[in-house]
């Protein structure tokens, strides 16, 4: 498919540089391979440039959508329900000890 030039609206395009990308990656707890950063920055900026077209829409007096059928969050009685057995649940973990999850030492 041909990429349409209208997708890139340089006028109000927000964009990120490689340092900002690294910062976002830190927030997301993702390590980035140094060599992949230039191309990833470019791809991210293409996606952000596309998203920037949303800025041109008049949304005054429009409430952000929360649920298609305008439902509000359902509440339930605060009572104990059937839960999954802890031992079974912990079979999916790499390291446990007496019902606890093990991770590297945090405090010396």
């Amino acid at each position, binding site marked *: *498919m041909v*990429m*349409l030039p209208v*997708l890139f609206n340089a006028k109000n395009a*927000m964009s*990120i540089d490689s340092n900002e*990308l690294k910062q*976002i*990656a830190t*927030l*997301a*707890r*993702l*390590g*980035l391979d140094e060599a992949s950063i230039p191309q*990833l920055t470019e*791809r*991210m900026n*293409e*996606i*952000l440039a*596309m*998203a*920037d*077209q*949303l*800025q041109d*829409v008049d*949304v005054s007096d*429009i*409430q*952000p*959508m*929360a*649920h*298609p*059928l305008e*439902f509000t*969050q*359902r509440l*339930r009685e605060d009572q104990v329900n059937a839960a*999954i057995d802890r031992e*079974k*649940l*912990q*079979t*999916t*973990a*790499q*390291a446990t000890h007496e019902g606890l*999850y093990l*991770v*590297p*030492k*945090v405090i010396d």
Partner: protein
Amino acid sequence: MSLHQLSLAQLTQGLASKQFSSQELTEHYLARIQRHDDKINSFITVTPELALAQAKAADEQIASGQASALTGIPIAHKDIFCTDGVKTSCGSKMLDNFIAPYESTVTQQCQQAGLVALGKVNMDEFAMGSSNESSFYGPAKNPWNLEHVPGGSSGGSAAAIAAGLAPLATGTDTGGSIRQPAAFCGISGIKPTYGRCSRFGMIAFASSLDQAGPMARSAEDLALLLNAMSGFDEKDSTSLNEPAPDFTAQLNQSLKGLRIGLPKPFFDERLNPTMGDVIAKAKDELEKLGATCVEVDLPHVRLSVQCYYIIAPAEASSNLSRFDGVRYGYRCDNPYDLQDLYFRSRSEGFGDEVKRRILIGTYALSAGFFDAYYVQAQKVRQLIRQDYLAAFEQCDIILGPTTPEPAYKLGEKSGDPVSMYLGDIYTLSANLAGLPAASIPCGFTEGLPVGLQLIAPYKQEAKLLNVAHQYQSVTDWHQQVAPGFEE
């Protein structure tokens, strides 16, 4: 006709009249998987022993006269549904070692209906993709042309059905992930109204958009499977809190007087012209059945891609923060501290597309940009929803193409995310608005199937399936068999 070419109703009839047993039927499909799946890579996990045990139980149920319409029929589950004791990978290295400790509501409902689970099928990693190429297990392939993608993210489900390796499959649709692969592989699929099928035990991608649904060869088969898969579930906080109707009830209604809306943004310059011709013929066919057409405008639908690719990554970045290498999933070797464990487990466990979306979402939700991106996108989403509500005052159902072009070649778009995202232009808005939408086969172009998309007002899946079934009663596109998979 061979067993794998029979409709669900014919299979049920065959089981009831003892022409074949569920065990024979299941063995037939397991043999086909063994013979053909090397070519299309549609299964991640096959569970023959479990399947044959379930088939045996189904045969006993049939013999005792307690069978439902689905008892003893095989099904393949998208590997996004947790299945107790069976590997549930979500197409990711992150969950390659994950044996689910509980059962999702949808697969449990299928089990209760007597369906026989053949195994778990391929998908884009965490359902993020439109081509199946982001799967850790390699892409599934399109049975109609093995060099082409099957679509995604439910590509394994669609490919398995198109190749006759399963008569039914479950799928999930966050931005088109049931409809687009159904279109690419020449099968039928429906994304129900948001909330109709429970999200419990379905690994979350974008919670306000995710919706499970059935995939099959025909609308009639979809209706039968949707009956089993839907209904209120207290374990899903956004579950539709009302009983689901019988989705087969309206199948045979006449289409006389049906008003079909043709939205301008679905017939734009991006639509491949030969696809446009195929869609126009499908529309003519429905007119012959008594429907009339009216043009409708959905002005904000043109911004669906932009809106979706903020909201979905934002929700994904939040949902996928749970994968930290501690409680389940991949953990890196020899972490030197807790931060290293988080960083390396996530970096090594997630693929490129998933990382890209987590990064976009993290940025969109970060302080200073939250209003400009996420809130703005949710407001545009509201406008898209209002467009549909206005359009449905003029028509009963909306018709258009499912995709702008047929299945493309493997690798053709994998390096260019924006181009890949633009392939979703016709499917995204139904997710953003939460509306039920289906794709059914309506012809071919370049030897590849074309999908017809139908969108209905909220909760009117039965109407959608009625229109699809009436169309399939006068056409045979849904009965075509991919070459090389006849036997």
